[in-house]
């Protein structure tokens, strides 16, 4: 009887859980067949997500970065920032569409500059790492682990070259080049297979998370624990 009292939606906390359960069942009902129950909750979810985002946009962005600096610090120059951003909406006007391009141009210019920094700090260390991998024992090298490193580095080099050959379209693939490209394609397939395996794992984890919610939060069955 105690369990039933706790189980029923008699408090705000339990009501929240029950709403979550109804939403979960509604979304998963698509697995059985297409139905209006699923459609209603799908649209409600998208609407809620969009509406929910509006709160942080107003509070954490407009209020924090625009309204308060003007009101408290007297940064009146910021008054022009929001209207300037809203010039983007002129894109819907045939006559004044050119005004939106001013904002778009400013944004593209800023992000082009940032892209240069991104390239050097993101890819150069990878290039450096790839080109400086030891392929044989340096004079001071000892230990079994280092042998495995050498082996891994050779595999890395073979995969790197064969995949690059596969993506070289400047000339026709013939003979050894063709065989290398085929090898590269196999390596790519293995890599994509590993990525797909990870994707399946992620989707499974999301499903498991929902089942856990139903068992633990709704039915109050203490599960798992390893």
């Amino acid at each position, binding site marked *: 009887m105690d369990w039933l009292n706790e189980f029923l939606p008699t408090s705000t906390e339990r009501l929240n859980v029950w709403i979550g359960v109804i939403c979960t069942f509604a979304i998963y009902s698509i*697995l*059985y067949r297409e139905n209006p129950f699923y459609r209603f909750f799908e649209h409600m979810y998208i609407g809620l*997500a969009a509406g*929910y*985002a509006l*709160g*942080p*946009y107003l*509070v*954490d*962005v407009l209020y*924090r*970065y625009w309204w*308060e*600096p003007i009101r408290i610090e007297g940064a009146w120059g910021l008054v022009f920032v929001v209207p300037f951003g809203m010039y983007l909406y002129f894109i819907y006007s045939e006559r004044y569409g050119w005004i939106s391009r001013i904002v778009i141009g400013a944004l593209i210019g800023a*992000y082009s500059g*940032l892209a240069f*920094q*991104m390239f050097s*700090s*993101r890819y150069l*260390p*990878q290039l*450096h*790492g*790839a080109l400086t991998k030891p392929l044989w024992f340096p004079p001071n090298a000892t230990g079994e682990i280092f042998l495995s490193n050498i082996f891994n580095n050779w595999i890395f080099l073979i995969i790197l070259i064969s995949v690059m050959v596969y993506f070289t379209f400047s000339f026709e693939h013939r003979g050894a080049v063709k065989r290398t490209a085929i090898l590269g394609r196999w390596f790519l397939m293995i*890599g994509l297979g*590993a*990525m797909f395996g*990870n*994707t*399946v*794992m*992620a989707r*499974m*984890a*999301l*499903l*498991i*998370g*929902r*089942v*856990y919610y139903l*068992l633990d939060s709704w039915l109050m*069955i203490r*599960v*798992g*624990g*390893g």
Partner: protein
Amino acid sequence: MEARSIWERMMRIDRRILYVILAVNIIAALMARVAIEPDVPPPVKRFYDTVEALQPGDMVMVSSTWSAGTLAENQPQFEAVLKHLMRKRVRFTIISFAPPARDISHRLARRIAEENGYVEGKDWAHFGYTPDIIIAIKGMSEDIAQTIRQDVRRTPIAELEVMRGIKSLKDYKLVVDVTPSDTLGNWISYRPPDLKILYCPTSVMAAEAYTFLDSGQILGMITGAKGAYEYERLLGIVGLGTRFINAIQFSHVLIIFFILLGNFGMLMQRRASAS
């Protein structure tokens, strides 16, 4: 009516039956009290060692850009990392670069902080939602108080006790990026050069991050709920990762079995129709 072979019947199994089998398998695995000892992979061990090397009072940034859609993958990671940070008595701040990520991370952090005797504002703070990650990282690299202005409770950053002696990201020891999206590249590109990065992606994103691990741009990685389980084992705690792991393992075995069975059935069917 022509009699169908077993292989033909197998190829025509209603997919809903497979869903039911999968659901039963997950429920049974969640209920099972079986402990599977993990072989902790090097990225998780390095993640643990990096946090373990922190000193009490060090400052850590937790970038939390996940929401309900990836809760089962990111929540176990987030909780395990926060518990480890609190065990080490380091200070930390949380920042979100997606609107729904703000409240979910704040609520979880508040609960874990209460359990571990951490006080918001004194030992940790949440910077709320910040709209542009690149501008935010570049701004915080120079002056956090000017860039973020207030925490999620509207307290000015400069007045937070947790921020004493901290001016910019250069004063932080490391950043932990818990995310299902491509925020890691921005942290790598625009952070101060000496700021170390640890990464908690969903399993989908993990494969792309191995290049960053290989080049040393990130020091460690916890992959999805499975990685969280391995991390929990290192920490010696039972969290969501530990609760999920049996179901993850058994559902994988079931899916591999289905794949093998489907392929075998298709081959046999082809052979039968060829003969």
